[in-house]
């Protein structure tokens, strides 16, 4: 091998070694890298019951219930397969809406109700002007169609 070929081998070797290390590390830490669990994972018992974790999914339309005169509220988070009820006291971000992605941080009670102390909204990748959004809504009977994948991407 000429010195140059040796150096090419070195560079390719570094890339291969680092990629392998990366794949192994990311596989090992897969559950720790997960920013949130979706309702199906909660139903399957993959989420820690005793510890705080994040629950993510879509806000099921018609389930947002605000108690008058307080900041108490409850809603249902869904991934269109499983539902989890969430209770929360506080102010929610601007993008918190029905049929929108949401990430709740808190604890799952023994009764299966998730008590959140922080609510984050998750925006989807779609952008459109208001008049286009109106037209899309009219076409779908007054509601914005949702893409279930944008709430919780499939695990690979």
């Amino acid at each position, binding site marked *: 091998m000429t010195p*140059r070929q040796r*150096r*090419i081998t*070195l*560079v390719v070797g*570094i*890339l291969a070694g*680092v*990629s392998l*290390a*990366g794949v192994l590390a*990311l596989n090992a830490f*897969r559950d720790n*890298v*997960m*920013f*949130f*669990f*979706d309702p199906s994972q909660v139903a399957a018992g993959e989420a820690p019951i005793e510890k705080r974790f994040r629950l*993510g999914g879509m806000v099921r339309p018609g389930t947002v219930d605000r108690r008058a005169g307080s900041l108490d509220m409850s809603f249902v988070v869904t991934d269109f397969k499983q539902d989890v009820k969430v209770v929360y006291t506080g102010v*929610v*971000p*601007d*993008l*918190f*809406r029905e049929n*929108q992605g949401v*990430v709740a941080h808190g604890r799952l009670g023994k009764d299966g109700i998730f008590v959140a102390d*922080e*609510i*984050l*909204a*998750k*925006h*989807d*990748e*779609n*952008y*459109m*002007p*208001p*008049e*286009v*959004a*109106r037209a899309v809504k009219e076409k779908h009977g007054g509601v914005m169609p949702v893409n279930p994948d*944008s709430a*919780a*991407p499939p695990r*690979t």
Partner: protein
Amino acid sequence: MNWTWFHKFGSPPHIYRIAGTLAPWFGWPAGLLIVAALYAGLVLAPPDYQQGDGFRIIYVHAPSAWLSVMIYGVMASAAAIGLIWRMKVAHAAAASCAGIGAWFTVVSLITGMLWGKPMWGTYWVWDPRLTAQLVLLFLYLGYMGLRSGIDDLARSDRASAVLAIVGVINIPIIRYSVEWWNSIHQAPSVMKMDRPSMPMDMLAPLLMMLLGFTLYFAAVMLVRLRAEILRRERSASWIKEALQ
């Protein structure tokens, strides 16, 4: 086949001259495109149906984030070429990329935080996408630190090139973090195989800005490359002629 043109790329005086000629040809269009894209994005483009005018920060945020990743690719490729072919000019090119890439990374992080507070409800969360982008900033800073930490130029070139190549692993992690894991960051709207999730009157300013930022990078990188070549060749005889 005549390879003279290729070997000339290894010649500092040649590159110094070419870089000086090309820089304004990238710089001026970059300036015009960025001004036009700012007007188109901030004034002409319609507001978003949910985020209102708040979505307009995408016109700075997304191009900066794309550039921060792209510049890393350019830097690592130049470093690899320098390592394999012992080409000093390639090491100089890699060195002149780092600072620009680091600043684009900072801009993408700050604009993302400013958008995140009203939209998500938080400036920062330790999400895979956000964390990987922060790691990119540390890679740039580490690369620059390593370069300036070693006095011997040849050793400094080689060591920093290896670091740049190792860091390439972070690039696919940034890109696919939102698809491999549950992330609060939205999936790509434009950089995907599918149709962009954005109408043309919103998309056009974004693409103009991306092209503008890319040309800006090319122009600034060439100017910095000239400075880097001058610094490295300060005792060479051609410098006196070039500076007269």
